[in-house]
């Protein structure tokens, strides 16, 4: 029995298999492969966007859904342990999708559960189906995952989505450009991982000058609370805002990705540009999640 807690739980082959499946679901979204099955969606922390994406995926596969969208209305708020909740729900459901505010909660659940777990976010830690939909979006728009030039922009220090995407893309020999303020630079451990895999990367602090070669521009938000020095935030906050005019000399195939929700890191004048892909990217989430669910349930 396999769970999906971190993207590193999937091998390169697993990932390719899931992406192929996601494409099949996109071509034919209503496949009753989960008929007769029950999937639990346990949102110990509310996230409407992620929950709706999962519940759409389960519904399109013909599965039934049990669960809760906010732990405050359940016995958890009366002090029931995570273990007791998981043990109980694992008796009812064939698969558990869970989001929890504490880091490591999904790994623990996977250890004690008798059914597979999909981590839909454990605090600031992991959110592997986001990575699957990012990969699917890259493959779909570029035709391949191999040898992609990917520019990661913004908060590369705390952003879990860029870390997971880096781990996965490094399996396919990408070329990385990290564009971030010094305070939010890509952590050493991830650069070491690339070095160990013989993958080239470059680091820059200027956005406009270093996206000319990119096939994918992956934007993230620079948050005020990440800065020790508020003056430093004021100095850099507008440096990492992507504007339509910056896209003039970019490659014709380039696509802009963002895990959403966006605040102001992508100017709204980019939205109408065919290079903007972030809304379509979110839509791909349903197909990627359908494929991940089927992979874990072996159906």
């Amino acid at each position, binding site marked *: 029995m396999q769970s999906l807690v971190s993207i590193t739980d999937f091998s390169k082959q697993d990932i390719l298999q899931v992406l192929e499946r996601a494409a099949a679901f996109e071509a034919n979204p209503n496949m009753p492969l989960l008929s007769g099955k029950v999937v639990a969606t346990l949102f110990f922390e509310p996230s409407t966007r992620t929950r709706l994406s999962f519940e759409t995926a389960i519904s399109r596969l013909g599965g039934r859904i049990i669960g809760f969208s906010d732990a405050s209305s359940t016995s958890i708020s009366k002090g029931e342990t995570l*273990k007791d909740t998981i043990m109980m729900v694992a008796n009812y459901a064939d698969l558990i999708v869970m989001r929890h505010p*504490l880091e*490591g909660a999904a790994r623990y659940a996977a250890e004690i559960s008798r059914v597979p777990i999909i981590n839909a976010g454990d605090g600031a830690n992991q959110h592997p189906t986001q990575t699957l939909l990012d990969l699917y979006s890259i493959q779909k728009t570029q035709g391949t995952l191999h040898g992609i030039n990917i520019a990661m922009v913004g908060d590369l220090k705390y952003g879990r989505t860029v870390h997971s995407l880096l781990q996965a893309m490094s399996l396919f020999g990408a070329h990385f450009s990290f564009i971030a303020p010094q305070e939010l630079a890509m952590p050493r451990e991830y650069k070491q991982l690339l070095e160990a895999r013989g993958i080239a990367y470059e680091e820059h602090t200027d956005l406009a000058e270093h996206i000319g070669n990119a096939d994918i521009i992956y934007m993230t938000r620079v948050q005020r609370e990440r800065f020790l020095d508020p003056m430093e935030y004021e100095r850099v906050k507008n440096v990492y805002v992507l504007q339509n005019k910056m896209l003039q000399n970019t490659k014709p195939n380039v696509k802009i990705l963002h895990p959403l929700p966006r605040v102001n890191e992508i100017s709204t004048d980019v939205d109408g540009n065919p290079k903007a892909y972030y809304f379509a990217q979110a839509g791909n989430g349903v197909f990627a999640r359908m494929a991940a669910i089927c992979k874990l349930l072996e159906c």
Partner: protein
Amino acid sequence: MKEEKHLKVSAIKNGTVIDHIPSGSLFKVVEILALNRCKSQLTLGNNLESKLLGAKAIIKVADRFFADDEMNRIALVAPQAKFNIIRDYEVMEKRTVTLPDAIVGIARCMNPMCVTNHQPILTKFNVVSKKDVLLQCCYCDKVTDQEHLVIIKNG
């Protein structure tokens, strides 16, 4: 009347003398080995002179012998510790400790948002560096270093 000098730590007939414990780690070692619940004769010495450590601590516990995995548990806080196994006042064997590849229980994860700090879950770590004592949490993946190492108290 010079007796005081020789009374620093009394000799034991059978048992274990744990030597070369850094002074700051004495009570951590007591906790890890659960010696606070030990019923036999127990002598603790702290802030003793040591060429090796500057200031060291020593523990003598009568009629108590430790298994290898018990001894290795204290490597987290006393990597240079030596276990002297005493039988009939003689040192029969000297054992050094080695940090195991995985640590279960004993230490707390330094990540305040880690699930193990909020739920009744036994901690688990992979030892990613034995030299610097770096412990990677098996649940949240964060690394706890020696400076932030907190030992979980035994009941």
